[in-house]
Structures are given as C-alpha cells and as structure tokens.
C-alpha cells in the first residue's frame, strides 16, 4: 500500500516511516512542507496520506489546506490528519464532502502502534478514524440535544466508538459485547436519533457524524 507522509519534525517523520514500513506500507514520499505535500499527493496518488496539520512555510494549517486541496482534485483521496490538538472546526471541514476516507487523530495516538496502524488501514479502505477527543467534544457540544440526552450510558459508549469510525466487531471487542448485542444497541441509537439504519459500516459512521455536526 502506497503512503505519502508529511511531517516537519525530523525524528517523528523517521519514526513514522519506520513504523509504516514495518507494517508493510510503502512510503513513496516523506515530505516536510505544505507545497511539497500537495505536489507529492498529486504525482504519487497514494492509497493513503498521513499529514501533520502544521507545516512550514507558514506553520499555520498548511498541511490541512494541502490535504483539502488534494481531495478537491482527487475526490475521496484517503487522508489521515495528525495534530497536536484537535478542533471540531477542522473535523467538520474534513468531513464536509461526505465521502469518507478521512482520519483526524492526535499525534499521541502514534504511541499505540497497533491502533494507529489500524486507523491508517481503516482510512485507506474509505472508512473514518476520528480521535476520541474530537468525539468527546462533539458529544459535549450536543449535550443539550434532546435525542442524544435520551441515550442510555451503554448506547452512548457505543455511539462514541461508532463515531470514532469503528466497526460493530471492533466495538464488541472493546466493550466485551457480542457483535449481535452491539447491533441491537446500534439499532436503538439510530431509532432514537431518527436516522435510517444502514448495514454499511462507513455510511453509518458518516450519518452519525453528520447528525452530531448538525447543531
């Protein structure tokens, strides 16, 4: 699987390259600035891009802008965005086109190699990987939303994990539930939020995120 990597800190970049290579990814380009990233994405057309938000030359949100620009040119290009902080505002911008293939994680998540690689694979497959902190913020800003408030604590946990982009199987593993029990919770959640159920994991996640972003 071809990966383009953009990260301006040398140590972290090298570390990520090692980590990705160790898991059978082919790092076709590891760049360190916004313009280089856009060029690399457009020439290599990778299966997934791992991008730091803040990059030279301006050290603002160069990485995010380059990723969004590339996705406008190549619709659905899978991008996993890494950052020292997460903002709902950025998550919304990434999700705005509603096509999936989006990840948005704190850099700390790299510490847990297994979960990080899992997230990269999920994004590459057209799924979503949202940081738990983004989802926590999203739910906090929906705390006065009637239907969300009606969820049981268990359903809330399932909703959080689902919004992060996990499949029913993964959620079951996390919460020590059978897959069918998770399925029941999901159906309840969809009923309470008045969303039409879907069997496709990715579409389901996007529907939930769109619902929570509506506020």
């Amino acid at each position: 699987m071809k990966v383009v990597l953009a990260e301006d800190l040398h140590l972290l970049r090298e570390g990520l390259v090692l980590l990705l290579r160790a898991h059978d990814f082919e790092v076709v380009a590891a760049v360190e600035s916004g313009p280089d990233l856009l060029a690399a994405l457009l020439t290599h057309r990778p299966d997934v891009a791992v991008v730091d938000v803040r990059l030279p030359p301006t050290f603002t949100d160069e990485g995010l802008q380059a990723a969004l620009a590339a996705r406008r040119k190549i619709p659905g290009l899978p991008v996993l965005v890494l950052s020292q902080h997460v903002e709902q505002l950025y998550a919304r911008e990434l999700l705005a086109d509603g096509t999936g293939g989006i990840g948005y994680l704190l850099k700390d998540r790299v510490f847990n190699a297994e979960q990080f690689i899992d997230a990269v694979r999920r994004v590459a497959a057209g799924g979503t990987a949202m940081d738990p902190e983004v989802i926590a913020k999203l739910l906090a800003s929906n705390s006065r939303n009637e239907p969300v408030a009606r969820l049981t604590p268990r359903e809330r946990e399932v909703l959080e994990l689902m919004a992060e982009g996990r499949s029913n199987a993964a959620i079951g593993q996390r919460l020590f539930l059978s897959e069918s029990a998770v399925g029941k919770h999901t159906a309840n959640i969809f009923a309470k939020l008045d969303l039409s159920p879907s069997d496709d994991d990715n579409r389901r996640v996007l529907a939930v995120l769109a619902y929570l972003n509506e506020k």
Partner: protein
Amino acid sequence: MKHIRALGHGLALFALVLVQVPTALIALLGVVLSFVLGMVFLLWPSVRLVRWVTALDRRLINRWAGLKIEEPYNPPPPPPVRQRDGWYRDGRTLYRKPTIPAFNARLGWLVRDPATWKELVWLLIDPWSRTVLAAGPTLLIGYGIYQIWQGNPWGLLFAVAAVVIAPWALRVYALYAMAMLGPNHATHLVGQVRHLNQVRVEAADSQAAELRRIERDLHDGAQARMVAVGMTIGAAEQLLTTDPEAARALLSKARESSATALAELRQLVRGIHPPVLAERGLGDAIRALALDSPLKVDVSIDLDERPESPVESAVYFAVAELLTNASRHAAKVTIDVSRRDRALRVTVADDGPGGATVIPGGGLAGIERRLATFDGVLALNSPPGGPTVATLELPFALSAMEPESPVSGRRAAAMAICWSLCWVPLIPQGIVAGFMLIFGAPTKSWFLALHMPAPFQWPTVFAMIALGAGMLAGGIILGASANDEKALGC
C-alpha cells in the same frame, strides 16, 4: 419659554457674583498671607474655598446650559509611604509621622497645579464677564423699558432682541466658562499619562502572574511526568535482559505517562495561546469556540484583516469567558464581529434572564482589565429579564481604512476663519455701529448698518453681534473637539 428660562438662569448666575466676590477676596487674602507671611496652612482652605465655588459654577452651567465641564485638576499626590525603618522620607528629611510629608506633598500639588491659579484669576475677572454675558439680556430689557418710558419706541426692539438672544448669550457664557474652568491640553495629557501608567502596571502584573502560573503548571505537571518517564525507561533498560516481561510492563507505563504529560501540555498551550487562533486567526477561533459550546451559537464575522496577535488573544479569551457565562443561563447566543473604521467591535448577545453585573475580581472585570491594555472597553447591557448584550470595542485594533479624512482639514479651516474673523462682525460692525447709531455718527465709513435704510439699521447691528458671537462659540467648540480627538489619537 426657553428664552424666559434662559433669562432666569442668566440672572441666577449673575446673583452668584454675591458669593464670588467675597470668596475671591477671602481666597486672595489667604494666598497672600500664606506666601508673604509664610502662613502656609491658610493655602489649603483658601484653595478649597475657590474649588468649592467653581464646582458650583460647573454644576450650574452643566444643568442650565447643558455643557459638561470636566475638572482640570492634577491627580492628588499618593499618601507618603512608610520606609522599612519606620520613618517617612520627604526629600532629604526623615519624619517619624506621615503628617508633615503628606502636608508638603499636598502643598506642592496645589502650588504646581496651574488650575489653582487659573481659578483664582477667574474668580477675580468673572464678575465682569458675568455681568455682560449672563445678566446682559436682562439689563438690556431694563434699558429697553427705560427707553419706552422715556418715550422712545425703539426701546421695544431692545427688549425683544434681548429676549431672543438670551439662550445664545447663556451658551456663549458657558463656552467661555468651559475655556477658563475646563481642562486644557496639558491637563488632558496628564490624565492620559496617569491612565496609561495604571494600565501598564496592571498589564505587567497580570503578565507576571500568568507566567508564574505557567511555570507552576509546567513544574508540577509535564516536567514531573517527564522525570517519571525517564526513570521508568531507565528501570526497564536494566530489567530488559533479566526480566523482559517486567520491562515490557514498565515501558507501557512510561508510554501512558508520556501521553498524560502531552495532554497536560495541550491544555496548558490552549490556555496560553490557543493553536486554532495561531493557525486561523480570530474569526475561525471564535467559530471553533462556538462549535465547542453546548449552546446554539450564531456567529457572524465581518473582518477583512487580522488584528495584532495580542489583541486577537485578548478578544478570544473575552469571548470564551462570555460564552462560558452565557452557557450557565442561556440557550442561544449570537456573536457578531465587525469593524467600525479602525475599531474592532464584538457583540455577544444571549437570551438569558439578564441581571449580569461587573463584580470586582470576577470574570467580567478580568475581561475589562485585559481589554484596557488596548484601550478597549466592555459595555454590558443586561436588564433584569434579559437579554444580555455585551459589547467589546477596541478603538485602534485595526489599521486605518484610508488616510486621514479630509473633514479634519476642512474643520481646521473653519476654525481658523471663526477665530480670525469673529471680531469683525462682533466689534466694529456690531457694537461700535450700535454706539454710532445711538450717538449719531458724523460719517458712515465702512459700517454696514449705517448704510442701511433706517428701519433695518438696528436689526443689522444685532445680526452682526449674533454672527460674531456665533463664530466665537463655533471656534471654541471646534477647537475643543479637535483637542479631544488629538488626545485620543496619540
């Protein structure tokens, strides 16, 4: 009615001459005694007496002529500070008690304040100007009645004209009083320097406190955790060959510790300068705040440039604070960010129950303090029953849209014309022509009124006097407002 009232007010002001003259004489005696005979203890009561009378004048003029005259005095000296050894220092002398240094400081303050002397002079010359301007219309009516009684029908015109010009005369007198009793440019600057000093001290204080807080947070938080991470990794290194299982457990603990340290650092950074503010500027940072809030927040941003970074940061934290306050009581908030010329204006309105007030030491007072560094103000309108509207305005936060507007140039020209030419209609064409009419002039010369047909001669004279007085008043007003703006602009 307005004219009659103006006549009455003028007379009442004139009646105060009965207070002014004795006060002036007593105060003058006090000042002379304190300087010639060294009875310095008389100076303070004398000046107090003068200030009491002029304060009365300011109050009456404000009430009757609608002209607010600020007090021009320099700020009083701070009380003497006790030294570490328990003595009070005044110059090169040490005192056991603060009484004498305080007295000396107050004496110096009074003597050095030009307003002290200006007001004494005012008390001595004002009875005359007051007789002419404030009581003038009434005297003119009296003169008119006397003329009628003498069988001169023109007297009626005097009386009518006096009634007509009465409000004008009062206004001109008020402007004259403002020029004499109000603060001048230097006093304005003294006030501004004092304000800036205070703001600077507060800014430095709060900055120092902020740095201390950051230092403490780093010291107790991330720094301590990194030490723990290092120690744990060291221990794991030693166990690596003997007990790989334990080493693995230690390493995973180190990883957790470093993740916690990162989370704490993130929190800290957000409190110092939120990353989204650095990356996107004020508009998007406020949008991000709105998204994170549990309330329904409508944001409208109309800003075509980024203010200076410290301004952005102050406004961001102010809006964050207001949003937090609103989330306790309200359900819906509207935030509006816009510019008015160079001013940045932010309005935060919520639908809560209202009744918010600025409590010293509270969050709103903190916003006020933070904005004051940039000459910004917080206006809070929160009637009981709501809604609450908080408006932040920072007058010079943005760059000028265009160079100085031509209006100020035109105003300067108008001011110059008013000042330089007001004497022409007032004195020769007005007063002198009037005297020439009364006493019968041998030649007409350049006096416009004398060239007029008989019925228009007196009206011309009065129109000229009114024009001259109007120009004088205009000059004073324009000059005063230009000074105000200059004082604000620098």
